[in-house]
């Protein structure tokens, strides 16, 4: 079931409230509905107000969920925010993995993985801002989360290398690749141009491939297909 988080329309999440009273629905389902609304809400409120000024009450209001239910699901606003973050990154990784850890020549799959990534970030500017920029404002939890996700991204780059993968001279070429993607996406989001990210595909393909295969081959792969 698609989560409201990835919905482009900023519709009223309270519309998704399950009927009150004795509906006989299993508790698990009710909790899931609340959780989904809270995660969607925390993304919106963080982007609108900033993490610092956001209160749990803001999230509750946006989600249409009661305070008690919130604390049954999350410890605090940080816990809720990190859960939303994880949900989104899991989703992104799944989409990239699908096209990248697959058959076909490596440079081609890099291009497809980048295309999936750029499309994902372009689909919802709020989600893009939330995942790339707002996380850095949460304090010490930012470092551990960043580090874990960066490591995950590097593992993913590695997972798709396959037999025809390059053997770059630089030990941290995979980290450079993740860094190139982050740098480009970060800049577009800051400029308020997340929607135009897909148009960067040729440039980013080139920039990502150069440390692995050199300029000529990278140019060919970026222009081709």
């Amino acid at each position: 079931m698609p989560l409201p988080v990835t919905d482009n329309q900023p519709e009223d999440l309270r519309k998704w409230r399950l009927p009150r009273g004795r509906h006989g629905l299993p508790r698990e389902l009710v909790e899931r509905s609340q959780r989904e609304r809270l995660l969607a809400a925390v993304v919106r409120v963080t982007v609108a107000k900033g993490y610092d000024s956001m209160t749990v009450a803001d999230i509750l209001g946006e989600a249409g969920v009661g305070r008690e239910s919130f604390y049954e699901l999350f410890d605090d606003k940080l816990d809720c925010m990190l859960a939303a973050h994880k949900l989104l990154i899991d989703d992104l990784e799944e989409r990239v993995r699908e096209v990248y850890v697959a058959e076909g020549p490596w440079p081609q799959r890099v291009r497809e993985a980048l295309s999936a990534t750029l499309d994902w970030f372009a689909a919802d500017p709020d989600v893009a801002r939330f995942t790339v920029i707002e996380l850095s404002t949460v304090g010490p939890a930012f470092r551990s989360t960043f580090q874990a996700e960066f490591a995950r991204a590097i593992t993913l780059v590695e997972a798709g290398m396959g037999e025809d993968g390059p053997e770059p001279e630089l030990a941290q070429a995979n980290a450079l690749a993740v860094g190139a993607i982050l740098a480009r996406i970060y800049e577009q989001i800051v400029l308020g141009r997340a929607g135009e990210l897909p148009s960067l595909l040729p440039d980013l393909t080139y920039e990502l491939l150069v440390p692995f295969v050199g300029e000529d081959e990278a140019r060919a792969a970026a222009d081709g297909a």
Partner: protein
Amino acid sequence: MSVLQPTIPVDIGERSQRQRILDAMIDSCAEKTYAATTITDIVSRAHISRTTFYKHFDDKRACFDAAIGYGIEQLEEVAAAAHSPEEAPPNAAREAAAAVLQTLAARPGLAQLLTGDAIAVEPKVVECYRKATIPALEGLWSRAGEPIKAHTDPRVAFGQAQVLILNQIATGKADRLPELLPEIVYLAVSPYGGHEEALRQSRIAKEVPVGGAAPSD
């Protein structure tokens, strides 16, 4: 000039206060990030009163901006001192990059401030120091009178370097920043020098111990 001419500037007390505040901001960011840093943290680290803090800065953010400015200034000086003007641009870029990395390793708080916290506080901060870095790099090539050709986008290289350093800090390996030397040198050379030259410089950097060629003795 007469030996009776006073030489101690009257604002020295004030300057060292300001300096202490900036250092306190940098150290606190290193320990708990900017977001978690409070004015109380800064005044207790700097051994000054709250009133003194507000005499120098309007708020936490103004102090942070000054700390960033101070950090960039330091890196610019280090980078400029690391090479002589006659040097070939790729060599100069390598030496400047190595010197900057060495400075950041000695001052992990500064590295944290310029990578993680700069992103957290406001993207404009990143923009401002990128504007200080990239023209300096480009200047190495234009001063040498060589035609400037961008092989890769220097803005991306800048972001990559930032991400790599941030990751090293987030992983708790701030003291091992020099391990990134081959990559940082590659990133400094590749935008204007090209991939092959960047790899060549990166190899040289691996052989020469960090700071080995720098006139630090």
